[in-house]
């Protein structure tokens, strides 16, 4: 039985290992487990980048009809990732700093760092400069839901906050309390970061 890759309806190419039934079972042998988990993490990161998804929850393995169906289930071989395994995979991602529990202090839902917060900080500053918003006060809403699609559209607030914190360490951003909640002002890079 030869395994093959499969392209999903959203145009994502699943690797051939995804067509192997044992891939969906948590392996008892530690080496096999780490290899399989590594593969799963890669698939999750790539898929989230492809679809611009930021969160994954253990609950997603328990229900259907959501964004993660294509990856967590394989209807062709009638297998799915069980909640206990997904929980383990998420824990691994967090320990490798590829995701973070969001909201903190629970372990059912994570924010996926398919782009690290540091990288988001750069993308954010870049976008703010190029759209001419430096030195003006912006609301979070303006950043995550701009009228024109940007690389930051749909960015979850916690991640935006992290990016801003990183920028403020190099004096390129400053959080400001405004009437409706929170705002931020961006400054140009001074060259001496």
């Amino acid at each position: 039985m030869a395994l093959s890759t499969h392209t999903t309806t959203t145009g994502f190419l699943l690797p051939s290992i995804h067509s192997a039934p044992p891939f969906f079972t948590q392996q008892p042998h530690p080496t096999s487990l780490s290899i399989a988990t590594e593969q799963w993490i890669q698939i999750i990161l790539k898929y989230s980048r492809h679809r611009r998804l930021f969160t994954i929850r253990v609950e997603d393995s328990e229900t259907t009809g959501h964004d993660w169906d294509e990856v967590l289930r394989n209807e062709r071989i009638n297998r799915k990732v069980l909640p206990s395994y997904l929980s383990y995979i998420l824990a691994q991602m967090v320990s490798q700093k590829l995701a973070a529990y969001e909201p903190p202090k629970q372990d059912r839902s994570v924010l996926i760092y398919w782009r690290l917060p540091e990288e988001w900080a750069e993308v954010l500053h870049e976008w703010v400069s190029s759209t001419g918003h430096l030195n003006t006060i912006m609301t979070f809403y303006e950043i995550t839901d701009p009228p024109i699609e940007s690389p930051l559209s749909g960015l979850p607030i916690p991640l935006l906050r992290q990016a801003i914190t990183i920028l403020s360490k190099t004096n390129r951003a400053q959080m400001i309390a405004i009437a409706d909640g929170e705002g931020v002002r961006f400054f140009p890079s001074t060259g001496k970061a």
Partner: protein
Amino acid sequence: MHRLNGVGLAALDRHTTTNNSYTTLSTTLSHAQITHLQAQLTLFRTALTAFAAKHRTAILDSPSFRHKFTQMCSSIGVDPLAGPRRGGWWAEVIPWVGDWEYELGVQIVDVCVSTRERNGGMIEVADLCRLLNKLRGSPSPSPSSSSSSNSSPPSSNSSPVTEPDILRSVKTLHPLGAGYTVLTLSDGRKYVRSVPKELDQDQAVILAFARGSGSTSTSDDSVSTTLGWTRARATAALENMLLRDGLCWVDEQDREAERVYWVTSAMRWD
């Protein structure tokens, strides 16, 4: 009167003289033979060197030609792999055959080490062949090559590697003491083992069974019914393979059997 046919002292002398002459004759003959033999060997060596040099490209490029060449060498009783360590003159004659085999050997070690974690140190020769050719960027020699080839390189800078090449190279790896051996299972399939561990007899049988039955997965039921073992023995062997040696993966979501064991060499990674 010569009737008594030479007896007496004279006869003794003559006897000695005759012996001496014979000895001299035999020495002369032996020398002649040795010289003749040496001349022949030199002629042979020159001819072989010329042949090897002339067909060097052919030997390196074409696996069938290479195979015939090594067959010819072995039928003469000459080992083209004997490198400088044996100090033979082969090292000067065809050093590049040895080099090629050693290079292949290094690549084999590379592939075995990188797949060791996935398949527990046992890799089927056909798989090894496929991966080696992928590594070298050369097309697979067999017409029925892997199905997952969404990236087959159009040009190759080295020749395709075949099973006899691999078997010979593994032999050259032997003096490294790393335990690279070729195991042949009862159904004739060959595996290269890169971990110096004895394969449990039961496991060997199961591996052969799993592959031979045309599928790559097996459950303890099918093992026990087909091989006639008790369920306990089948389960124990499979669990050992799974847990202790990492030779297979388990699938717990199969509807028919509780646990289905997949032999890792069946699973292809991109």
